[in-house]
């Protein structure tokens, strides 16, 4: 069913939803960007539709909600570990089509990768519903069409904001009652059909061991290993786990997991001081191969969803998208 209403009118529904759900969406944090007087756009709790950043692409992805940067897994008391029991919260997340496809990748990584389900992710995920934000334009560096992630269907509501009005597509019956008496509108989410950039992903059968030793990766030694690409990626899921004892009481502490990045120093450090992939070019190879090769071998689809945030944020102007095209070219040369 489709509806149309003013933003104020929708905020009343937003308020009702807030009673049951924690509502997250991309939010502009004024002057909190990397450079002075620039903004940051990241996923935070929002309390009205005005707070939703609808126009711009966010710098960080919705994975922050389901897989927080830092997450306490256990409380430690002496020798005892006590699992954190999360309250039964329900989540509603505003996101775009690429990011909704990315949730699918997170599900695979956290729930279907090996035989163990990640409890922390699962608890949040099973109580989460999604509101799809229609993309009015394809942003700089987007290549969702190439990755088949420009479309999605597993959302509860779809929205478009235009001329101070909100257009709604309600797919989830749970929300039907909320809109009783609202003005009906024949609206369904439209999807981006073309991006400025096209990316061609290689066939995994064409990727041979020679590619791993190809000199093309040396060009990426200019990577400074900051990890912005990983931290903004909606599908990167690596983390590291640390036990911390509190300064105030050294018998108490927590086991905490924190995002990790395959580009940042120390990612592959092992006991005894062994460390792999010392040069950053090889880290680029490792990441790219996970996104379009290893993951695909395991789950049958590309991990990358073409949001282009890695290209948006790389301080060294390294283009991951161009790198994939280069890999595809190389595989053709070799074939």
């Amino acid at each position, binding site marked *: 069913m489709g509806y149309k209403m003013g933003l104020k009118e929708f905020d009343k529904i937003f308020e009702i939803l807030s009673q049951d759900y924690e509502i997250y969406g991309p939010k502009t*944090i004024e002057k*909190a*960007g990397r450079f002075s007087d620039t903004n*940051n756009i990241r996923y935070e709790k929002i309390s009205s539709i005005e707070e939703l950043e609808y126009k711009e692409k966010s710098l960080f992805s919705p994975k922050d909600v389901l897989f927080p940067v830092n997450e306490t897994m256990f409380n430690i008391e002496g020798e005892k570990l006590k699992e954190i029991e999360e309250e039964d919260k329900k989540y509603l997340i505003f996101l775009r089509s690429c990011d909704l496809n990315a949730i699918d990748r997170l599900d695979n990584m956290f729930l279907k990768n090996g035989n163990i389900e990640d409890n922390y992710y699962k608890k949040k995920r099973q109580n989460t519903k999604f509101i799809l934000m229609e993309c009015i334009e394809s942003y700089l560096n987007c290549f969702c069409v190439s990755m088949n992630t420009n479309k999605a269907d597993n959302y509860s509501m779809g929205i478009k904001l235009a001329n101070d009005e909100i257009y709604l597509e309600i797919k989830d019956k749970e929300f039907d009652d909320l809109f009783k008496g609202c003005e009906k509108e024949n609206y369904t989410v439209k999807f981006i059909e073309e991006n400025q950039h096209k990316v061609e992903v290689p066939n995994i059968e064409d990727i041979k061991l020679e590619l791993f030793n190809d000199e093309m990766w040396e060009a990426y030694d200019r990577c400074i290993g900051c990890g912005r690409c990983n931290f903004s990626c909606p599908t990167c899921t690596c983390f590291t786990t*640390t036990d*911390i004892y509190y300064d105030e009481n050294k018998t108490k502490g927590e086991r905490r997991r924190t*995002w990790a990045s395959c580009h940042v120093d120390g990612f592959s450090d092992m006991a005894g001081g062994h460390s792999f992939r010392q040069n950053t070019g090889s880290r680029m190879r490792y990441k790219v191969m996970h996104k379009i090769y290893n993951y695909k071998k395991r789950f049958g689809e590309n991990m990358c969803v073409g949001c282009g945030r890695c290209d948006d944020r790389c301080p060294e102007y390294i283009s991951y998208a161009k790198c994939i095209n280069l890999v595809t070219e190389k595989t053709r040369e070799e074939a």
Partner: protein
Amino acid sequence: MLDINTKKVMKNAYRITKRRGETALRVRTPGGEFPADIMPILTEIATQYGDGNLHITTRQGFEITGIKYEDMPIVNELVAPIIEKLQKHIGVKIDNPKDGYPAAGTRNISACIGNEICPYANYNTLEFAKKIEAAIYPHDLHFKVATTGCPNDCVKARMQDFGIIGMANVKYDQNYCVGCQACVKNCADRCTGALSMHKGKVIRNKELCVECGECVTRCPTQAWTRSSDKRFRLVIMGRTGKKDPRLAQEFATNIDMESIIKIIQNTYDFVEEYITPGKAKEHIGYIVDREGYHEFKKWALKDVKLPEETKIKPYMEW
């Protein structure tokens, strides 16, 4: 038979040069920024009335050299559109731009390129420079002011009577910190080593931190952010010259824009009270040295409403 009043010439922003009969005009470009369309005017003056050259001054203005003294009235008329654009337009009170620059003692306000372009700058130095220009020019007293975006101090704010250095006033949200140490390593390498790791998170030593904001530019998750209130470090009484050259010292930290402008304006009153009679170009720094820091401070802070977090140096040793 040239008969000119050199004092009037100099007040009009012309120089008495070593070449008999020739002067040079200093064009004020506050912040060192101007629309490119003033260039044809400079070209016209330089080629028709000067020696065809332009000199970029140390304070980021232009000096048009080789102008004949008798051509000053016509040059003044030609330069008027620049005065309209660069001074009147930003609120400087000048009655008749066609008479040329009404004063030259208070020098052009210099600025680094600032945060419109530079990743390190913590504020818009050009905008601030223009605000100061509007607040203190025209004035005959010899004041040098410059704005710089961060403690790198590219504009050499520490060589000015008033140097304004941007402070980032950083905030840290450890919930977003991944412990990558990018900020810690960079601070040790390029800044003051104010950051250290403790149990996977960052600790900042506020005594060492100079609020440059480099941690914010390095942080890949934006756990570090700048404060949205603009705050500055105000350094004062730096100087070059033959007598006791020295770097400007910190007068205030965490001070706001309005207070800085008021302090500079108040200092004009201080100088007018204490300047050696007949020595119109006496430098403020020497007057402060003679009258004492406390007397200067009393005048400078008159009616200034400082933000709560502002700290003023109780004593000063240059």
